[in-house]
Structures are given as structure tokens and as C-alpha cells.
């Protein structure tokens, strides 16, 4: 018996058994049969045809109207059969695309890859998760020979592949920055020119750029329209928003950026993020800053990498595991 005959015999067996004794157990066998026939790409119109053949065989006296009714059912099911075959081909394409996306995400990671510096005076945690296949958020650390640590966090307006394409350009532009350029405002001014020149006029980028100076323990920063972060003061246990004003990158060629500076004390935390963190949406609406702060407080005793990971997990669950935007959260905590 070939496979098709085997399936036919199986269906006949199930059908006979059910008509003699209609039990849940036989229906369960029917479900398993269904699963198997779908796996083997038997289309629904073939099921109808088989059903008709078997009924005619099992009941030679089957009324003519029943037999005819199956012909019409088959005709109707044929359209469903086509839909079903389209699914098979779509699935195949989806699989190909998924593989392609995975490769692309790897390429992106190599292109955008950054190394989180490890220094005795700072505990650094960072997480960045794309909402779709590819990340339109970006962060980057550079530690120079005088141990200044600069950190960039950016978000292309838009998600997915277009954003990722854009980001790979930005990354290259950042690598081409003169090495001696350490002033956040100047860095943003340079990048703004590059973006304005090279990127589609409909695309904008927000970026926060900061430099941590380990001798004075100060943090200098500028922002190009980026989601504001928080400063946590260990002494008071208070969180304040890091205010910094500035136009998005790519809007206006000659934009100038203001530069700010904060003194950082032992135990203080600099909390930076993309708007994907605050735009996490649950049934009750957007995540309030207070909610976010309460999560930070909940995990505040942990190493900062665990804090950012745990907060991500909480917010992921809050949205039923469907991110609406790329999610990036970075915490720097002064240790000594």
C-alpha cells in the first residue's frame, strides 16, 4: 500500500468506527488524522472526495441527494484548497525571509558591534532589543587612552530594515570621526551634517551623546532630540530627568547643540534609553516614568546589567511579548 492508500484506509477505519460508536476517542483520532494529512499536503478537496467515495462504498444505498451534495461541497472546498496551497508557499517564503533576516541581523551586529568597557569606577549595563527583525536603535561605547568613556545612544525614526540601513551609515560616520573629538556638542554637529547630506529627507535620527570623565567624575552630554534619561542620586534616592535640548539629526544642516555637565557621586546612576522603553504599552496605556522608576528601585540592589535585563523582561511581559518599538536601556553607575 502506498501512502495515499494507507491514509484512505485509515480514514475509512476512523469513519466506520465513529458511525458505529460516536465517541470522543474516535474524534481525537480524527484530529490526529487531520494533522497527518496536513503534514503530507493532502488538500481539503481531496478529503471531501475521499469522504464521498468511502460513503458510497460503505453505503451502496446512499441517497442520490447526499452523493450530489458532496460534489457541491467539493467545488466549494476547492477554493479553500487553493488558499491552503498558498499557505504552503507563503510559509516557505516566510522561512527564507526569516533566514535572510537572521543573517542580516548578524551582519548588522558585526557592523554595529560595540564593546562595553570594563573599568573599576563604573558599573555599566546595556540591553538593546529590536521590535522586529532588525534594530533601528544603536548604542556605542568608546574608551580613549585617557580613560574617558564616551557613549552614544541613537534611534532612527522608523523601525526594521529601513532604519537598520540608515543606522549602518551612522555607525560608519561615527567611526570616521576624528579621534580627538570629545566634545558631545561637536560630535553631534558633525554627525548632523553627515545625516543631512546622506540620508533620505524623510528619515530622522535622535541621538544622545555623553562623555564620562573619570578624574573629575563628571558627565558631559548633548542631545539631538533624544528621549531624556534619568539621573539617580544615591544620597537622596531621587530620580531627576536629564534635561537636554537639541534638534534631531538630519533636519537642518547648520544645527548647533548645547552641552551640559553633571557631577557624578559614588552610587549615582546615569540611566539612558530610547523611546521604545517609555512607549511600552500595556492595556492600561503607556508606561509611566513612575512605573519605570519603580522597576529600577525594585532591582536597585543588583549589578546594573541585571537591572536592565530584569526591567526589559518586566516590560516585555507587560506587553504580552510584542514589542512595539526597538528597546534600548543603558545604566552607568559610579562604583568608587
Amino acid at each position, binding site marked *: 500500500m502506498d501512502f495515499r492508500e494507507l491514509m484512505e484506509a485509515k480514514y475509512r477505519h476512523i469513519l466506520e468506527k465513529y458511525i458505529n460508536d460516536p465517541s470522543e476517542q474516535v474524534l481525537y483520532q480524527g484530529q490526529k488524522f487531520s494533522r497527518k494529512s496536513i503534514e503530507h499536503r493532502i488538500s481539503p*478537496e*481531496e478529503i471531501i*472526495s475521499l469522504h464521498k467515495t468511502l460513503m458510497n462504498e460503505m453505503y451502496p444505498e446512499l441517497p442520490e441527494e447526499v452523493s450530489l451534495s458532496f460534489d457541491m461541497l*467539493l*467545488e466549494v472546498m*476547492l*477554493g*479553500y*484548497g*487553493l*488558499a*491552503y*496551497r*498558498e499557505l504552503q*508557499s*507563503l510559509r516557505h*517564503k516566510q522561512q527564507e525571509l526569516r533566514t535572510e533576516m537572521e543573517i542580516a541581523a548578524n551582519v548588522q551586529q558585526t557592523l554595529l558591534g560595540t564593546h562595553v568597557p570594563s573599568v573599576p569606577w563604573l558599573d555599566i549595563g546595556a540591553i538593546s532589543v529590536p521590535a522586529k527583525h532588525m534594530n533601528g536603535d544603536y548604542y556605542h561605547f568608546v574608551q580613549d587612552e585617557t580613560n574617558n568613556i564616551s557613549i552614544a545612544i541613537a534611534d532612527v525614526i522608523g523601525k526594521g530594515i529601513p532604519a537598520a540601513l540608515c543606522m549602518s551609515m551612522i555607525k560608519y560616520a561615527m567611526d570616521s570621526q576624528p579621534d580627538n573629538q570629545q566634545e558631545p556638542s561637536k560630535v553631534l554637529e558633525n554627525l548632523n551634517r553627515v545625516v543631512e547630506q546622506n540620508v533620505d529627507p524623510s528619515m530622522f535620527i535622535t541621538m544622545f551623546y555623553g562623555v564620562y570623565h573619570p578624574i573629575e567624575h563628571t558627565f558631559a552630554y548633548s542631545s539631538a532630540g533624544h528621549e531624556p534619561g534619568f539621573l539617580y542620586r544615591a544620597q537622596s534616592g531621587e530620580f531627576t530627568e536629564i534635561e537636554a535640548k537639541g534638534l534631531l539629526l538630519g533636519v537642518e544642516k547648520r544645527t548647533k547643540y548645547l552641552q551640559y555637565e553633571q557631577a557624578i557621586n559614588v552610587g549615582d546612576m546615569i540611566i539612558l534609553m530610547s523611546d521604545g522603553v517609555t512607549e511600552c504599552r500595556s492595556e492600561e496605556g503607556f508606561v509611566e516614568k513612575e512605573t519605570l522608576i519603580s522597576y529600577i528601585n525594585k532591582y536597585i540592589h543588583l549589578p546594573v546589567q541585571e537591572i536592565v535585563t530584569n526591567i526589559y523582561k518586566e516590560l516585555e511581559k507587560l506587553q504580552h511579548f510584542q514589542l512595539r518599538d526597538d528597546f534600548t536601556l543603558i545604566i552607568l553607575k559610579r562604583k568608587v
Partner: protein
Amino acid sequence: MGIQSCVKIINEWDIVAARQLGRNVAKELGFGTVDQARITTAISELARNIYLYAGQGQICIEKLYESGKAGLKVVAIDNGPGIKDIRQAMEDGYSTSGGLGAGLPGVKRLMDGFGINSTPGNGTEITATKWVR
């Protein structure tokens, strides 16, 4: 080469005539019930496309015999506006009729062989074949 029987497609009832012709030939050639229905549906789709988008044209059915196998060939010809982007027309989900599984990719799936020739402004010729199993 076998003998062609053709049906002119001008109004919607001609679609039924084309289906009937296809089903008869398929039955004669010994196709099973499901394959008869598939051939008929493919013809129906092609005839409907002519009726809806080309205004008029014809469906021809031909019997094939090759190395001991019997088959059926459907040729759909029109002088309509033609298909601008064939690559796109053959993609799932771009079908003009909009329905799941419908359109030219559906016809291709129902049959064994499929060919298309179209020049914008000059009409379209679609050939589809199926062999008795």
C-alpha cells in the same frame, strides 16, 4: 498536435461554457474527480480574468498524448491591455481578484505546467497543462 476546441469569452455565461468544455474533455481523458474539478477551476479563473480585465478573448482546450501519457492543455488568449509586470502578477497576494489563493498563482498551482506571454497593449496568452496521473 491534437485538435483544439475553443470557446469565445464575451459574457459571464461563456465562463460556464468553457468550464463545461474543460470538464468534458478532462472526464473523457480519464482524469479523477478532484483533478476534473481542479482543471475546471483553473479554466474558470482564466476565463474570468478575460471577462473582467480583457473584455473578450477565448479559451481553447486541447488533448495531449505524449510517450503513453494523456494530458490536457488550456490556452487562454485575449487582446486586452496585457500584463505590465509579470513577475508581480505571478506573486501571491498581488492577484487582481484579491481573494486568497486566487489569480494566476492559483492557476499555476492547480495545473502541472504553466506559461505566459504578454505584451502591454497587445494582449496575453496563457498556457496551462495537466497530465493524467
